[in-house]
């Protein structure tokens, strides 16, 4: 009992110290603060904002021996053909402080009207992606409740409208962007185009979001900003309710040496690490449960004209097996991957050159096959951005992809995955 008391005292002292070095003026420091808080004393009652992303993508992959295409060879979210124009994101939201005189409470609401993995499954339907309230009353422990981006990998946590590429890396798309099957979902083999119909999940992707409560804050020490977040969520993506009693725990830490600027393109060197632990119920057999863990670390360096980002992540359980195979996602496989990307802002122009290499390996411990039964995806993406102004830009990128598997059947499907061209216009308002 005395030990417990001493521990409680230590915790209280630590919390007090943390609270005392916390500066309420820290804001726009990182994604946690940018998305979860408003600038103290200077926030609007209700700021209307949003963005539109319109794109064209063309895939150069060849079909398998019988003329069928698997999802990586088709354009999402519909996965029917190899080229498509699409308004993939059209989001509109409101954020601010309900009562501008009180900076202790702020809110964030955002809805998705574009055609993507959130809205397209089971027929197009617009969806709310964020709805949260943050309480800033406790120094060093802000509390955010509702539906919002959980603390995690940089590629998922960052604001998508300032993402420097059009498509996610394979590791983020397959390992982190969670899919949620329903008992009525069925698998499909590779199909010929048109109307390949490879999108077999009928529920929205998780979109790196969850419904829950997060405690977080940022502390400024000289030029460094240290941030933490602890979140407890349903582990059920964008679905409002929970489908089981299991909860996901998210842990996040970042330390950033700030060079200058503000907002999503603030210059600095950020180091970060994160972990997620949860358990999923098998949609096809509700008596079965499977742990799902993800973890990663990385850094981001931005000092114009140069930018470098690298992340490594690994996971176990519920490893995605393709958008056409929802029946195979309940597994205890392992997977890992990483990426490194660099950007160069061309001096005295509005152009930016981007280069990214990403790699992903899944099925590292496939239970039903021989050892070394792995699938690997390596992608080199070269892109350019033209910034018309701070709110409008054009992205052009080409991804050279090399997919392979140790076993013949999946290898036959993946070996002809080829390049992909994508053009996207983004306008933020």
């Amino acid at each position: 009992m005395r030990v417990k008391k001493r521990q409680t005292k230590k915790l209280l002292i630590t919390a007090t110290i943390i609270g005392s070095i916390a500066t309420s003026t820290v804001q726009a420091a990182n994604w946690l603060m940018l998305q979860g808080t408003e600038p103290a004393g200077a926030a609007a009652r209700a700021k209307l904002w949003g963005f539109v992303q319109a794109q064209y993508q063309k895939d150069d992959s060849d079909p398998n021996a019988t003329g069928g295409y698997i999802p990586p060879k088709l354009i999402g979210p519909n996965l029917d053909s190899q080229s498509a124009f699409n308004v993939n994101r059209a989001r509109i939201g409101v954020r601010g402080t309900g009562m501008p005189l009180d900076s202790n409470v702020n809110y964030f609401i955002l809805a998705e009207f574009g055609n993507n993995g959130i809205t397209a499954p089971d027929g197009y339907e617009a969806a709310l992606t964020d709805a949260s309230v943050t309480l800033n009353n406790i120094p060093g422990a802000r509390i955010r409740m509702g539906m919002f981006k959980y603390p995690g990998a940089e590629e998922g946590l960052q604001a998508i409208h300032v993402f420097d590429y059009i498509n996610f890396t394979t590791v983020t798309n397959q390992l982190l962007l969670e899919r949620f099957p329903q008992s009525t979902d069925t698998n499909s083999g590779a199909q010929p185009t048109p109307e390949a119909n490879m999108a077999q999940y009928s529920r929205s992707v998780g979109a790196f979001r969850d419904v829950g409560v997060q405690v977080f804050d940022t502390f400024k020490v000289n030029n460094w900003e240290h941030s933490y977040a602890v979140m407890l969520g349903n582990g059920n993506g964008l679905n409002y309710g929970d489908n089981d009693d299991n909860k996901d725990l998210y842990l996040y830490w970042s330390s950033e040496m700030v060079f200058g600027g503000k907002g999503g393109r603030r210059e600095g060197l950020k180091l970060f690490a994160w972990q997620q632990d949860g358990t999923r119920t098998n949609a096809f057999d509700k008596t079965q449960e499977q742990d799902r863990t993800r973890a990663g670390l990385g850094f981001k360096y931005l000092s114009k004209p140069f930018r470098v980002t690298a992340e490594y992540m690994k996971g176990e359980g519920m490893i995605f097996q393709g958008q056409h195979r929802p029946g195979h996602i309940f597994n205890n496989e392992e997977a890992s991957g990483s990426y490194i990307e660099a950007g160069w802002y061309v001096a005295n122009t509005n152009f930016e050159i981007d280069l990214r290499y990403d790699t992903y390996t899944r099925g590292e411990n496939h239970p039903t096959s021989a050892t070394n039964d792995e699938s690997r995806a390596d992608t080199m993406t070269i892109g350019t951005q033209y910034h018309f102004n701070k709110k409008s830009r054009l992205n052009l990128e080409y991804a050279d992809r090399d997919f392979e598997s140790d076993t013949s059947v999946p290898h036959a499907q993946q070996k002809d995955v080829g390049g992909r061209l994508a053009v996207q216009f983004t306008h933020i308002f």
Partner: protein
Amino acid sequence: MRTFYKSLVLLLAMAFIFPVSAANDFAEEKIVIQISDPDPLKQTQVLNVANNLIKHYGKNKVSIEIVAFGPGLRLLFKENVNSDRINSLTTDEVTFSACKNTIAAITKKLGHAPVLHSDAKPVAAGVVRIIDLVNQGYKLIKP
């Protein structure tokens, strides 16, 4: 000794006739900037204007007072994200005035008095302060 007393009396008389103000009496320009708007961008704009005036004229040649009232008083809240800029402008002898009427109204709404920046000087009424300054030769700017 008589000369000393005479000088003292003269100085005291001058002090009553020409009351000392916070303003820089050697200033070539006297500017009062009004902030009464809830728009957060206005806060930045007001501080930018003050900064640009100091850059243009030099801090010894311009006298600047920023008067905040109504929703604009949020600029002078202690927690305001611009407080570092206010500190910096204060060292450049910019004066920040906070309307007491607004403070009273906010106190009623919040249930407690707002905590203001340590350099904010309460004035009876923001709008009256502006009129007084204009009568003293200040030029009013409302960005």
